[in-house]
């Protein structure tokens, strides 16, 4: 093989090689859209259909963006569930305010998200504990904090939050602007030093250390970003549902990991694209529509989202394992 990490640190990021794994999200999108189009076309072509879809995608796309980067480092962030729950709980219990106070609330919850992420990052960077154990523990802790803030589903966030985050700018739905913004952010981020380092850490941490990648600093940044994005997702979720729940965030754990896996990231670290994960998020958001179009009870969505994760991760794992074995054989 020889110097893959070294290569990774100096090479300009290449376009993903077209193969089975990168084709997965588009195949899913095509199949699901076709199914919806045949069964219930109004879900895709009706007035504002795209807006509704983009609105539903935003929170998951935000969480999946951070999850992608954690998975590229060969880590994972399970605590997003607790952070999203805590955020919606705080906003839903402090709805009786207006104006600057609402801005203050948003700043506060995002700061909490960053704090949660920095704690994760410090533990991952400075202790030998694996990311899944660290974030399993902090998921429980933040889930508990959400429970203390809001013990049962309910509450209502500030009305301004809802008017700010929904609606349109110059005729373009705000949710579409946010998704586009995330894609642009990824196009910028993927060629930064930060992401080159992140890929190097994920493909071979020992070599990344040898070529001078600031590993600890990068890991703290990665989890801080994931925590911040999870908190922003919580802000959106509170605005969209108009309430909070002590376990509102738990669904985002499976779905964000599924979005990343569908989006073509390697579960063994080193490669991945947040743009792909956003497409993966759209796949997962289309599933309830397909379930609706098939006139099935909405509970089938939970099954199908898990099923899609299991099937996709198995395919991608086998493909990546075979590819690595072939490469090892060739080298």
């Amino acid at each position, binding site marked *: 093989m020889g110097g893959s990490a070294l290569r990774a640190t100096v090479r300009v990021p290449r376009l993903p090689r077209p193969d089975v794994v990168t084709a997965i999200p588009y195949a899913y999108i095509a199949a699901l859209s076709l199914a919806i189009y045949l069964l219930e076309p109004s879900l895709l072509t009706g007035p504002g259909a795209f807006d509704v879809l983009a609105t539903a995608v935003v929170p998951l796309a935000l969480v999946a963006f951070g999850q992608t980067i954690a998975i590229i480092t060969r880590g994972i962030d399970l605590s997003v569930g607790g952070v999203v729950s805590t955020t919606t709980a705080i906003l839903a219990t402090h709805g009786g305010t207006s104006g600057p106070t609402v801005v203050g609330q948003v700043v506060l919850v995002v700061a909490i998200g960053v704090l949660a992420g920095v704690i994760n990052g410090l533990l991952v960077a400075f202790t030998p504990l694996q990311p899944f154990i660290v974030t399993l523990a902090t998921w429980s802790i933040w889930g508990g904090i959400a429970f203390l803030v809001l013990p049962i589903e309910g509450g209502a966030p500030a009305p301004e939050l809802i008017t700010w985050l929904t609606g349109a700018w110059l005729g373009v739905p705000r949710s579409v602007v946010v998704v586009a913004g995330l894609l642009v952010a990824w196009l910028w981020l993927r060629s930064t030093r930060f992401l080159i380092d992140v890929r190097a850490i994920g493909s071979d941490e020992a070599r990344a250390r040898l070529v001078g990648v600031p590993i600890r600093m990068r890991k703290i940044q990665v989890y801080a970003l994931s925590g911040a994005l999870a908190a922003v997702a919580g802000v959106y979720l509170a605005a969209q549902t108009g309430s909070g729940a002590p376990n509102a965030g738990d669904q985002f754990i499976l779905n964000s990991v599924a979005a990343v896996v569908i989006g073509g990231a390697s579960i063994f670290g080193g490669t991945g694209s947040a743009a792909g994960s956003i497409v993966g998020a759209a796949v997962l958001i289309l599933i309830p529509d397909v379930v609706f179009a098939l006139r099935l009870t909405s509970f089938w969505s*939970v099954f199908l989202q*898990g099923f899609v994760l299991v099937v996709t991760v198995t395919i991608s794992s086998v493909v990546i394992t075979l590819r690595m074995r072939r490469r090892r054989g060739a080298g």
Partner: protein
Amino acid sequence: MSVLTAYVVVVGLVVAGTLYTPGFSGIGQLRTYAVQASFIGLVGLGQTLCILTGGIDLSVPAVITGSAVMTSILCHGDSARLAPVIVLVVCLAAVAGVVNGIGVAYANVPPIIMTLGMGGVVQGLMLVYTKGGISSFPPPALARFVVGRTLGVPHLLWFWAAIIATGAVLLAVTPFGRRLYAIGANREAALIAGVDVRRMLVAPYVVSAVGAAVTGVLLMGYNGQAYLTMGDPYLFASAAAVAVGGASILGGSGNYVGTVAGALVLTVLSALLIVFSLGAGWLLITYGAVLLTAALLASVRVQRR
């Protein structure tokens, strides 16, 4: 934390509780702690095996809830149906465990992602099956078994004692146990030494799923009902119990007797929280903090070696 330290912590916590409220260590209380710990302990056997081999099983909450819900609905209060329903539920759980195991062992999927996905699959099927609501009660035979005692000791504790003995012997002396340790310590070396690593790696997930299913059935009898979030605390609790028991989260060390101590620590801690009138939120925070602290202590110990 060594296993001995974990048991010292259990005693210390009971003493601390007694100093605060004298009734804390009454015989009835101690019995209740042990019974509540048995649920964490039953889930903890499979979780110990998974963590020992460097994995984890995130699907336990879904399997616990699913099996409780299915038993409650299929029995419909009829004790005669209990035995066949339990067999069915355990077989279904075993299938979920085998799928987890095959994904991890043969398809090389990271355990965390495989079991996260299967958790969603099981939870989804359970929701579809119940349409989101259940109103049923356990068959009388199950309720009688769970609260009943023989020679003054609750049936659940006899059952747990048998599992503890089996689990301890399984890990300590059988070739099966030694192979699991070998895989956890160094998979490549185990492979070279002739261990069928892949086939062995399926077992922990099957044990975990079956243990979770049995826990779900017993828990339903104990609570007098099944509800959709009943399994949720047991993921954190089982992982924390394994960590308290001294298993290195890096795999390759730990044993079931330690996990038993961990289950007792967590149960006495939750009883202390109730004494201080701290509710469900504090329980989750405690589980998380204990998991983190114990895992850190265990990893420090492994590093020093």
